[in-house]
């Protein structure tokens, strides 16, 4: 049983096991299900993520037409070889967008931790697959590790944009992905916690201001940047860089910032990008003039 990141890390270190294993044992205990059953369900969720990325990389468009095909654009750009940052990080960006484009197009995805933030965790996992060559078992463990950190955030702060802004959705997802990347790359449990802290620190204050209230603009691109953030935070932690503010205190800060955030910036489509002239014009085009003035 763990209630915060400090306890999660201590459990893994004391038992000399992975954070993934701590989460698996916890799930078996809480649900009363067998280990095989729990692993099989996560295996299924991994397959759903794989299919969503594959579909997004073929190119999809949403009902509104606001989002689609950016994952494909990024893949073509990577293939052309003239990119400025790095191939793995851009692949993560492309695959994160692929998932969220499928989500916006009413395709099947796995919420991680929500539908709106579903791109970050699979985007980073499938991007490092070439480099780290994980086994199927290790990929499933990646999701349990991400889940363990998300579980702490969900129970101590929030994973809902309506309650805590985008920092609670894409911010949480970036922290979860960063921690899981560290463990997959062979880092220690405490390094995973540092990565989570570094990723989440850099998402603090991010508002949830979806244009027309749809999970499209800016959600798809926020997933792209959430994935990039997670990759850099994981590299920083693996380099031995530490967060001066402990992970649990960063999560606590995220919760308090979310509580202080105005309602107009928490998934109501009343402020931020949703309230820009272009944001309002898009809402009017999709829902009619009355909805845009609310």
């Amino acid at each position: 049983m763990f209630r915060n990141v400090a306890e999660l890390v201590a459990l893994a270190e004391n038992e000399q096991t992975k954070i993934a294993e701590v989460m698996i044992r916890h799930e078996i205990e809480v649900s009363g299900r067998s280990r095989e059953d729990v692993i099989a369900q996560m295996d299924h969720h991994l397959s759903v993520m794989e299919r969503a990325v594959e579909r997004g990389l073929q190119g999809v468009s949403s009902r509104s037409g606001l989002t689609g095909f950016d994952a494909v654009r990024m893949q073509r750009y990577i293939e052309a070889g003239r990119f400025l940052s790095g191939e793995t990080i851009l692949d993560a960006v492309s695959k994160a967008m692929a998932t969220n484009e499928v989500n916006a197009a009413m395709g099947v995805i796995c919420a991680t931790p929500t539908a709106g933030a579903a791109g970050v965790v699979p985007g980073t996992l499938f991007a490092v697959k070439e480099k780290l060559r994980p086994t199927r078992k290790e990929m499933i463990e990646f999701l349990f590790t991400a889940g363990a950190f998300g579980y702490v955030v969900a129970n101590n702060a929030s994973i809902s944009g309506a309650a805590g802004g985008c920092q609670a959705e894409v911010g949480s997802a970036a922290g979860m992905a960063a921690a899981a990347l560290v463990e997959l790359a062979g880092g220690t449990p405490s390094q995973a916690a540092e990565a989570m802290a570094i990723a989440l620190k850099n998402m603090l204050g991010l508002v949830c201001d979806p244009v027309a209230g749809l999970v499209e603009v800016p959600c798809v691109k926020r997933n792209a940047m959430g994935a990039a953030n997670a990759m850099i935070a994981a590299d920083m932690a693996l380099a031995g860089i530490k967060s001066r503010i402990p992970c649990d205190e960063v999560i606590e800060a995220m919760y308090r910032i979310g509580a202080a955030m105005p309602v107009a910036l928490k998934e109501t489509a009343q402020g931020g990008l949703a309230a820009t002239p272009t944001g309002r014009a898009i809402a009017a085009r999709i829902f009619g003039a009355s909805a845009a003035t609310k």
Partner: protein
Amino acid sequence: MKYKSVFDIIGPVMVGPSSSHTAGAVRIGLVAYKLFGRKPSWARVSFYGSFAETYRGHGTDVAIVAGLLGFDTFDERLPAALDIARAEGLDVSFSAEEAIPHHPNTARLCIGDDRGELELVGISIGGGKIEIVELNGFALKLSGHHPALLIMHNDRYGTIGAVASVLAKHAINIGHMEVSRKEKGKEALMAIEVDQPLTDDLIQELEQLPNILQVAKLAD
């Protein structure tokens, strides 16, 4: 602890775009379908709050109808639900209501056919979790944080005891329970929150009990 399972975080598997406005809406429709016990021939759906403002863009209308057809959150037929409903003779109408609801994501469903009608109010509280706050005029107070059973039954002695016995046999503990009826001896409702997951076998066993009209589970 609000969230108990890792699959609340890495999950659910669902058709997009929104866990609250799509997956939650499917689940509200699905509860109505299970309680009604068959596909209705007509449905009137009223949306309130955020649902009223954004239902077209989120596919909340499509999602509710998918639930009424018996589809789950991950059913790939979901985006085509309105066409499938038309083909199967389910006549649906939607209205966006001005009234300010208690919760921003609220839907009222009236469904029926030539044999009966059912009215239900559901709210979508985030991450695909839902609560049913009203059923056929009965107000409900379920926390939404535990698996729950909704059982429509005839108001006869021994019915509540029989349901409790079946739960005990399956080693399922009742955390919270409400019973209500409109009139002595007529239609009544049990709403039961439990601590353990509810299996399909258990639901089938409950359905076989005397005086039970419909059984639906919320979450699992």
